[in-house]
């Protein structure tokens, strides 16, 4: 029995080591990006566009940030992003702003935070100020309504993509406990309407006691 066990664990260790190496490589790539004016301009531009095109609040911004900064520019690793979004989710304030602040800090310190924050806030500031002055036109316009509805469908596509992607990745790791947490949290929130903050706190506690092992990270 013990020999079989050690064989399995050896294979697992090998796999784990490879994963770690790949992770390190991505980490290195993320850190070595140049922080020049072009970097800050790209950061501002992408965050500005993401904020300007996000219809429908909090969670939609996550797939957008991931698409730009993880998949396109490789400034962040996926694990870092989810970790930081988890933190953004559990602090007070708007998730989108919190994520921008924390991810901005991760990518480029205080200056990165400021750039990301201003870029997130500016589009709604501009759009709403205009809308506030021509409110009547705006709420009646069918054209505006259909465009926004279409963009809502686009946002749905993006968030569904990321959801499927993350679940598959977690399932591939074949660790029971995280999968159980996903299922339980999903049912508690979707079916029983359990408060999100409470769920995040509970899952944090479960992690504190049961998921300290390195294989879970």
């Amino acid at each position, binding site marked *: 029995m013990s020999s079989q066990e050690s064989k399995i664990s050896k294979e697992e260790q090998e796999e784990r080591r490879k994963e770690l190496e790949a992770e390190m490589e991505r980490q290195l790539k993320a850190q070595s990006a140049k922080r020049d004016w072009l970097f800050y301009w790209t950061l501002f531009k992408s965050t500005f566009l993401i904020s300007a095109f996000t219809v429908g609040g909090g969670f939609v911004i996550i797939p957008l940030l991931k698409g730009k900064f993880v998949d396109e520019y490789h400034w962040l690793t996926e694990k870092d992003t989810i970790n930081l979004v*988890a933190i953004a989710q559990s*602090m007070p304030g*708007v998730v989108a702003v919190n994520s921008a*602040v924390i991810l901005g800090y991760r990518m480029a310190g205080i200056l990165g935070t400021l750039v990301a924050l201003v870029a997130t*806030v500016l589009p709604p500031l501009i759009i*709403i100020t205009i809308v506030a002055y021509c409110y009547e036109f705006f709420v009646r316009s069918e054209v505006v309504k259909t465009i926004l509805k279409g963009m809502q*469908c686009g946002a749905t*596509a993006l968030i569904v993509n990321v959801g499927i992607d993350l679940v598959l990745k977690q399932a591939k790791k074949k660790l029971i406990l995280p999968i159980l947490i*996903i299922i339980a949290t999903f049912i508690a929130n979707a079916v029983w309407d359990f408060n999100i903050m409470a769920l995040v706190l509970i899952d944090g506690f479960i*992690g504190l006691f049961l998921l300290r092992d390195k294989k879970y990270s």
Partner: protein
Amino acid sequence: MMILWQLFWEFCKVGVFCVGGGYASMPLIQDSVVDTFHWLSMSEFIDVFTISQMTPGPIGINAATFVGTKVAGLAGAICATAGFVTPSFILGIILAKLFFKYGDIGPVRGILNGLRPAVVALICVASFSFIWLSVWNIETMPRTWAELSNISWGGLIILVGAVAASRMNVGVIKVLIGSGVGGLIFGYLGILY
């Protein structure tokens, strides 16, 4: 000048106490803006809510900007928004710093390992409520046949968008612009709702 400072401070408080995303901030804003300071009437406040949901951008920021504009013009909008994000800014930097420093010690790693599945689950929940809203135009799962059969062409936009983003590497902004155009076309044909 006084009113600008008041706007900043009131929304600063909203920013600190709004736990759990944009929707959670609405009762807090109502309490201070409508009930305490009488900057807006209740019907104006409901307008704020409608507009905040319709326009792009985080709902909380939209509401702060709209209230600010109504109360004191552009300067008011800037002050209210700045007040609203200041707590996030300070707290976010502190937490990010702590994460760098202590992110890899046992207990913190444990907590983060518990939080990650939670985020995955919440993203899935959000995905489903978005699907109900975009495909069936209702907020909860379709339960009756009548609801179920009332399917919108928005579903096609979702399908194309998802395939473009995941299989064809189309950038996220392009997907959103494309689906906006799709909405315009379907709306023109009268098959979006």
